[in-house]
């Protein structure tokens, strides 16, 4: 509780957190939607925003506002799922590389450096092309989860490397603590915050990648996500037809989501790194 209060003192964090909460609320609203998100022609087409249709309707005959609630829900679910998968990989690789050192460390870091250096976007496109026919939220999450861990594994590794040199590690080892216990009881305390902040950053990356893949036509466009919504609006020439609300809604919401997630991660990581915190206080 105290942590939360301290965090909220940072105006950036509280701004980000409020926006994330609003978006979560939007996602929850989708459960009360009067319309089926898959169904076309449920409302009159191309209506501008009004009280009846808060964000207007699109050329597919769907209500933009309710469509958006589903989009936010699906995009967030995808992001959490994919980011959770890559967190598991990042933690395992980071711990293993950092703790065991030597050859294992070198091989693992070579692989993750390879991932960092490669044009990941192209690799994702190649893989997505192969599973194009069977693309759905789960497959996309697996795909993005399997590829988005390299940088964070490095971060965790460097944290473990510094923990290994600390006094308490030697004490633990000398007093006969098993490695498993040392890692789960002691190191996890230091690593959890790191996992949390990288989780948020990775979620933003996943949402962005989903939008990109959807816009080049590599996801299943029948599932309403932020990317699918944008793709439909772009392919129906919403801008040329003057249906600005159809484009503005997904663009606005996704930008809000990215900025909010970023502010939250910035706030937490500065809170977790006291050095940065002192600098901020000093700068005020």
């Amino acid at each position, binding site marked *: 509780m105290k942590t939360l209060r301290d965090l909220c003192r940072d105006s*950036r964090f509280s701004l980000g957190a409020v926006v994330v909460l609003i978006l979560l609320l939007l996602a929850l609203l989708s459960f009360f939607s009067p319309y089926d998100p898959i169904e076309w022609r449920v409302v009159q087409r191309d209506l501008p925003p009004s009280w009846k249709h808060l964000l207007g309707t699109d050329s597919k005959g769907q209500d933009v506002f309710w469509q958006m609630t589903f989009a936010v829900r699906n995009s967030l679910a995808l992001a959490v799922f994919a980011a959770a998968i890559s967190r598991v990989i990042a933690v395992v690789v980071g711990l293993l590389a950092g703790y065991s050192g030597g050859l294992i460390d070198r091989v693992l870091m*070579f*692989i993750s*450096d*390879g991932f*960092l*250096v*490669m*044009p*990941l*976007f*192209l*690799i994702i*496109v*190649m*893989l997505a*092309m*192969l*599973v*194009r*026919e069977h693309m759905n939220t789960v497959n996309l999450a697996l795909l993005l989860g399997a590829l988005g861990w390299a940088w964070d594994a490095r971060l965790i590794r460097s944290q473990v490397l510094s923990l290994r040199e600390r006094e308490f590690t030697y004490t633990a080892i000398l007093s006969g603590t098993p490695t498993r216990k040392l890692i789960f009881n002691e190191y996890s305390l230091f690593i959890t915050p790191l996992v949390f902040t990288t989780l948020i950053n990775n979620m*933003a990356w996943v949402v*962005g*990648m989903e*939008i*990109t893949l959807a*816009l*080049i*036509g*590599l996801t299943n466009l029948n599932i309403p996500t932020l990317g699918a919504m*944008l793709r439909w609006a*772009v392919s129906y020439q919403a*801008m*040329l037809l003057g249906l600005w609300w159809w*484009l503005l809604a997904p*663009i606005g919401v*996704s*930008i809000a989501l*990215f*900025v909010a*997630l*970023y*502010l939250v991660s*910035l706030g937490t990581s500065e809170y977790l790194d006291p050095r*940065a915190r002192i*600098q901020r206080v000093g*700068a005020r």
Partner: protein
Amino acid sequence: MRFVRRYLIPRLIQYVLVTWLGITVVFIIPRLLPSDPIESMVATLQAQGTFRDPEAVRQMVDTLRDMYGLEKSLPEQYISFWKRLLSADFGPSYFSFPTPVIKLIGRSFPWTVGLLLTTTVLSWIIGNITGGLSGYFTGNRLLKIVDWIVMFLRPIPYYVLGLTLVILFAYLLPLFPFEGGYTIGAKIAFTWSFIKDVLRHAFLPALSLSLLGVAVNHQTMRLIIQGVKEEDYIRYAKIAAVKERAIFGRYAMKNAILPQITGLTLSLGQIFGGALITEIVFSYPGLGFLLYRAIVNSDYNLIMGITTISIIAITTLILLVDLLYPLFDPRIRFR
């Protein structure tokens, strides 16, 4: 000699290894599917329904069989894959049959390189200067505004920013053309009007790439210089009454720029991907747009070609930066 042994040779080995790893990944990916990739690709092509030249289909299947060579054992497949690669033969493109893939790539490559190099260098320089200033002179109002703008720009993905710029400056305020690399039908020549046309078309894609590049460099540089500012040599310079501007330029920036050079090599792959995505948004005639057309037409030959060439281009660029690095860091030269 020590320098060669300890810096140059490890770099070269790393270059070869990473390139090999990347190309091997390209080799492995199509083989991940449990079903025959060629069968499924042909099925995808047929499902598209458009009429294709049967000769094109046959040749495509032939190249695919040759490249994947699934009848042969895996090591044999791997060797024939490399043989083709080394002779820069990726087979014919499917959607503009029978043009070889390598020719299409050759046509698009200069556009991407031009856009990528200009924006990367520009945004690296600008971002480091603004970031350095704002990290060092923390009290400045103007720099604080820049900090806030950067904070809102940085997390936006390439595609979304590009799309927003298209809507703002091509549709709502029609200042710039919204697609292409030059006006269709314009004569390609080194005349002033053609160059002007090219620059006008390149402006929005370059702007969208530069904005994000500046934002990333600004933020990391700000953090680095805040750390440098606490170092003893800066404090000493202050006590010795060295002018603030001289401390900033001669001591703080010079030391803080080094990790940024390394950072550039690590993020080149990402920047490259971003450039491809931006090209797709603006239908800019580089590799990205070629990739988009390959995706739409399920041209797997072309996609493999683009990926392979990109991997080689990026690792080579990284090697170049790595080789230039000792020029900036005397510690490595005199080790």
